[in-house]
């Protein structure tokens, strides 16, 4: 028996094909896991099912009838409830637990003009009881812990008697103990006959909870596993076939000295401290699943967030940048992930983007020199073969790959000692990726590069040596020549020889 049936659903945004003919079935009482790397299409599928967007083609049937919600409210009315990743989008701060539980009533007719505490409490009580919520109904919702707030959101979702409950990364903002407490709750819900679609990056949860797991990659449902799930196979399906590119391993690396030495650093709170070295001319890859602490590690090296523990030395001298400005002065550069949000200034030209991190170097007697700016920008265009109508073109007129070339290239013109790249190839086409790789590998000035990516293929393509992070701790270190698909996926999944409970 099937309550939700998705068949051949595709979704395209402009030229991007986010979903390419995904099919899956969900039965009442079942917990179906949905897993995939960034950009695999999980969010798009959730948006289609929750009514936030419409599929471009394909069909969805709910309890035998066509399901084409016109919006989130319509999807809810039809019986599909979605609990989104960010809990605080689901509660209204400043209101009590009871008020939050009965929010739905306010928006609809028939609830009368006046709301009193008593009436709200009266209506909230059965909602809380049905969901097994023990919180004080008169407490302000912000006084609850994250998991308490999440229970309020889930209780409200359940009060609408859902046929299908979608939980989008429900544990991403919870502590480990809170997450452990959530899982039996989800099992109970399924026991009551609700079909649960459980989306998570955390393999251990998927393994412990789900009856079946669907793996998405590049917008397609690649494989479906039935419990008990083989972690290793799941990760392999998520990441695809890994073909190590042996052309990267020939580069000579001076092993006697190091550019950056980190000792006792921690990727994220709760992770175990570890040491790390990047040598002149070396490209060090850091990989791991989402949430393994890659971004946090790189941002600590750049002074964009405080150093959690340990000490750093840069070129032999102690290094502890208090902010990105200090890091840049010391010769460290960071290309952050999420280019649009963290590197692009809307409406600015390519030229202005190139000079921004080093305005001082483009100044003559206190006044910015357009000529100096332009020559730097032209150097970037030449170096990385940026396709643009000219250096004065607005950055938005460039393709994603060419924008990325600009934000990487602007650091190279300043000859840094250490270049930190965080997910540098996301939303970047194959050609631009090859150009960037060629330039980074071809540097002969001893530039050390630290490249972080959750796609091991990208790291294998570029790096001389690879570190694997797993949940904030160092899971292993491999030379590119020894790195195989098997070993990388095993380390990323945290499985090799030490099976966590």
């Amino acid at each position, binding site marked *: 028996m099937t309550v939700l049936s998705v068949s051949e659903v595709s979704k395209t945004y402009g030229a991007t094909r986010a979903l390419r003919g995904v099919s899956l079935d969900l039965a009442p009482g079942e917990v179906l896991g949905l897993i995939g790397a960034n950009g695999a299409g999980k969010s798009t599928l959730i948006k289609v099912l929750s009514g936030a967007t419409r599929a471009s083609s394909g069909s969805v049937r709910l309890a035998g009838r066509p399901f084409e919600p016109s919006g989130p409210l319509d999807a809810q009315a039809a019986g599909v409830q979605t609990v989104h990743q960010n809990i605080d989008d689901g509660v209204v701060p400043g209101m009590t637990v009871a008020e939050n539980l009965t929010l739905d009533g306010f928006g609809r007719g028939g609830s009368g003009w006046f709301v009193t505490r008593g009436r709200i409490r009266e209506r909230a009580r059965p909602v809380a009881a049905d969901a097994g919520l023990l919180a004080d109904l008169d407490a302000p919702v912000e006084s609850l812990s994250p998991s308490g707030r999440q229970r309020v959101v889930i209780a409200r979702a359940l009060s609408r008697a859902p046929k299908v409950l979608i939980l989008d990364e429900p544990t991403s903002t919870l502590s480990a103990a809170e997450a452990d407490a959530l899982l039996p709750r989800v099992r109970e819900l399924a026991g009551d006959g609700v079909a649960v679609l459980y989306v998570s990056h955390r393999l251990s949860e998927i393994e412990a909870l789900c009856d079946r797991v669907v793996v998405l990659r590049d917008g397609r449902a690649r494989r479906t596993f039935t419990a008990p799930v083989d972690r290793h196979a799941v990760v392999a399906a998520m990441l695809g076939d890994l073909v190590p590119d042996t052309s990267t391993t020939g580069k000579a690396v001076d092993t006697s000295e190091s550019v950056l030495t980190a000792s006792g650093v921690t990727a994220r709170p709760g992770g175990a401290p570890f040491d790390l070295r990047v040598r002149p001319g070396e490209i060090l890859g850091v990989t791991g699943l989402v949430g393994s602490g890659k971004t946090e590690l790189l941002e600590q090296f*750049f002074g*964009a967030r405080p150093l959690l523990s340990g000490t750093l030395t840069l070129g032999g001298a102690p290094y502890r940048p208090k*902010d*990105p*400005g200090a*890091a*840049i*002065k010391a010769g460290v550069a*960071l290309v*952050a992930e999420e280019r649009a*949000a*963290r*590197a*692009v*200034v*809307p*409406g*600015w030209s390519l030229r*202005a983007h190139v*000079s*921004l*991190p080093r*305005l*001082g170097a*483009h*100044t003559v007697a*206190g*006044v*910015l020199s357009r000529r100096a700016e332009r020559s730097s920008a032209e150097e970037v265009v030449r170096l990385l073969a940026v396709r643009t109508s000219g250096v004065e073109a*607005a950055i*938005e*007129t460039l393709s994603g790959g060419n924008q990325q070339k600009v934000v990487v290239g602007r650091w190279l013109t300043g000859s840094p000692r250490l270049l930190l790249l965080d997910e540098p190839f996301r939303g970047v086409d194959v050609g631009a990726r090859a150009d960037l790789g060629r330039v980074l590998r071809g540097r002969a000035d001893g530039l050390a590069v630290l490249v972080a990516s959750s796609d091991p293929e990208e790291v294998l393509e570029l790096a001389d040596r690879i570190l694997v992070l797993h949940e904030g701790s160092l899971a292993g270190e491999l030379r590119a020549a020894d790195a195989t698909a098997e070993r990388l996926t095993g380390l990323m999944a945290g499985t090799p020889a030490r099976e966590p409970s």
Partner: protein
Amino acid sequence: MSAAGRAGDAANRYGLLVVLAGLLLTFSLVRPAFATYGNALIVLQSVAVVGVVALGVTVSMTTGGFDLSAGACVGTVVMVTALAMVRYNLTGASAVVAGLLAGLLVAGVNVLLTVVARVPDLVATLGTMFLFQGLALIVTSGQSVAAGMTVDGAPAPGRYTEGFAWLGGGTIASVPVPVVVFALLAVAVHVLLGHTRWGRALYAIGGNAEAARLAGIRVARYRALGYVISGLCAALGGILLSARLGRGDVGAGDPYLLQSVAAALIGFAVLGTNRPNALGTVVGALFIGVVINGMTMLNAPYYAQTFVQGALLVGSLVMSFGLARGGREGRTSR
């Protein structure tokens, strides 16, 4: 680009300048006295203080801030300079220094609230506005400050010095001093914002603060700089106003907030820049001055002036925000 897109783009770039030229032409034809050198100086003199304050507000807007306390700062500085000379019998130069210090004090409160306590800019500067409007009333016991006023039963010892009054009423080669100050400040702000690394950093913060931070720009420092410049410009405006009035009137600074904010916002629509800029602010201030002067010559009632200024502001906001969207899409599709 479509014909409609092109038309929108042109309206976005030149619309305001065309309207201004049209107004100048109309007023000149209807009232020949409008198009004289003397009247031009009157218009310039009337917008000089607004323009000086507006240039400061413009700088505060570049980082995405918004200085609502500019008008209160003008009022405070008028009172401080008047008190300095009339009640404490200080020299004109000391009064100028006291006025600038008062401007720095207002800026300091804004910086504390927005940068240190992280209160949103609009409400923080609104709070500062109230504080200093109130403070100006307290230090003068709600009275205007003028020569010959009684202080504790005795007449006040001092009066406005001649040198200080020259700042408001004097001329340099027949051009009123406030107009000269306005022009020099406009050039200075134009160079700062358009041609120095500091201006580029200010705009970067307004465009994408996170991108600016990761490019090594010390965001808090520049946001503070924006308010300091705004406070100093408002103080300069207050000094010029005080010199012209020759007395410290309660509430003298009140009209300057709306007019200077309007001038800066109208400036967004000049040449399709869609961001705060010195040239645009000058045009915005002139626009307001021309409209008021022309209306007065046409014997329009004075009480209609606020409404016309409001219509002007709304029109140019539509021009810079509404039409800009069409224009930008047109550009990227090329």
